[in-house]
């Protein structure tokens, strides 16, 4: 079995040519049958796993167009005065709804360049969904509860994953070729990008992201002391 290895430096032209040839080969051999995956781990410089990191493909092999994402909708819930999930990766063009399953009102907003919007005081599931069509990270907040925050990461292709508590991720159903893979974390000082050549089966990589130290979470929920 041939296993590709990640390359830190990229020669764009060579990668493109190689990628194109690989994609062509894959198409000739039957496309889906060749789909592989990139698996890996996101760690900080000391080797500690990073949970809640987003790993996504930002460049596809030459000649390949991004497949349509399986999901065009996503939800960021409001439960116990917290956004759930705290980090939500979506493909550009995804409609995100903000159901509020608390018994109090929330006032969701974002001033980020990626998406500026607000959903005035609402409860239940009747707030209008918001379409995220610009790439980037949108910080989400609640105008009433300062401690509530979350990030929606808008990525360009449907190849993305969120790392688990062990920092692990899998990017599935990837035709062979050379991909630009980005590792992103909310606390990153600098993100990391690798060019990864996928031939078949599983391609393991490790992404190291230099992050700021975690901060103590602000009181988030509980009891009658919390105001609306």
């Amino acid at each position, binding site marked *: 079995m041939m296993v590709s290895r990640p390359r830190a430096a990229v020669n*764009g032209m060579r990668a493109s040519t190689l990628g194109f040839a690989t994609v062509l080969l894959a198409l000739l051999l039957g496309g889906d049958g060749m789909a592989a995956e990139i698996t890996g781990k996101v760690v900080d410089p000391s080797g500690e796993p990073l949970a809640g990191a987003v790993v996504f493909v930002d460049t596809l092999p030459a000649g390949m167009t991004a497949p349509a994402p399986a999901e065009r909708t996503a939800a960021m819930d409001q439960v116990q005065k917290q956004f759930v999930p705290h980090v939500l990766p979506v493909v550009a063009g995804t409609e995100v709804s903000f159901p509020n399953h608390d018994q109090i009102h929330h006032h969701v907003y974002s001033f980020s360049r990626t998406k500026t919007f607000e959903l*005035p005081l609402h409860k239940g599931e009747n707030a209008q969904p918001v379409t995220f069509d610009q790439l980037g990270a949108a910080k989400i907040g609640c105008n009433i509860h300062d401690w509530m925050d979350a990030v929606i990461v808008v990525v360009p292709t449907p190849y993305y994953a969120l790392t688990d508590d062990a920092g692990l991720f899998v990017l599935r159903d990837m035709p062979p070729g050379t991909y630009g893979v*980005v590792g992103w974390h909310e606390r990153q000082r600098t993100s990391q990008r690798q060019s990864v050549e996928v031939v078949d089966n599983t391609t393991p990589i490790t992404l190291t992201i230099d992050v700021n130290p975690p901060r103590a979470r602000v*009181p988030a929920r*509980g*009891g009658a002391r919390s*105001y609306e």
Partner: protein
Amino acid sequence: MKLGSVITIALTLVASLASAQSPYDEADERYEVEEKSRFSLRALVDLRVVQGSEVPSWQENGPGKIRYGGIADGAAFERVTRFAIAQLALQPAVEIGWGWRAEAQINWDGDLDEHGNTSPDHDPVRIIEGFVRRDWADAGGGWSAVIGLSNPPFSLEHTGPARTPVLSLTPSALTSWLWEEGRVLGAEGHWWHATPEGAELAAFAGAGWGPDQMGILLARRGWVLSDFLSGANSRLPVLDGNGFTEVFDERDGRPAVYAGASLADPWKIGSAHVGYFDNLGDLAVTGVWETRYGVAGLALTPVAGLDVTVQMLYGTTTTRGAALASTINAFYPIVSYRWREHRVSFRYDDFSVRDDDGGNATQEDGNAYTVAYLLEFWLRHRVAFEYVWVDSDRAAAGVPGDDGWQLSYRFRY
């Protein structure tokens, strides 16, 4: 081909190659997330045009039951229109390390009537709250501790920003009183647990010093409806004798104790709340009031947009020497409907004080109706209109009844 065109094409090609080699560089900035500051400052200002009752307000030692009243001209009363800064609130907060967070709220207000006169009753700057808090929690439940100056969290109305009512401008008589005299300097613990199905059970208990005169206002002045938030440094007027009472006045060295619990259903239709407070007042000490009460309430959202809140209070208060022992009662249902940015609310208040010494010194029986319209817009702005009508048999014979309207603009940051 001209030289300029060649240069342009060459530059374009170079730019394209650079872009193709590192497309993420260009996007990098867009993926940056601003880190939240350890410090935060929230502010709220509420400006009003108000026409209150004919009689001077309780805030000016008058018999008026609502926050803004008229002026006395000899034996006659005159209804006046006021421009008021109903609330200017600042809420600084800072993360102080080890998961603790310090929070405070200070308020100031003032008003000017159509004759150019200001009310003399306002405190300079009031310290509403100031405490440190820490949570230990996960999605299934947790604990929290609050240490400092706070108000026992019994009110189901004062749950908005800067402790303002959410559904109306003026809170009920019941919760008006809770935020007048209830300040405690001490410690409070919370526990809560959420089931996998979504039900939530919560409980809290606390103890602290300060409310040794709690109860005096109901016995000597009676119930009022007011969104005035007293501070720990407030001196509130009592109706008889032009006297004042200190909100924070520890005399007997005994801490007040309180506890409460709530249960919310998994379908988020509603929650039930109960609470008990006892200031453990030592009647052997001059000026101490012994006050205890229980509260129970429901906060329901039976359908989207419809809020129904019901709360009742029952308690007793007494002091040494004067025949002012009283049983206190208050109850209110409020129904509110929100459609998009619009909200309409209607509340009925029922309140009473029974003089347990057999006299008529503290006796009161009254009710009130409140209707409010609130419009939220542009994230931080709100305009609201409210009309309140109060009837109480405590007011001296011949004193006109209380009613008044308010037009409010609120900005919060």
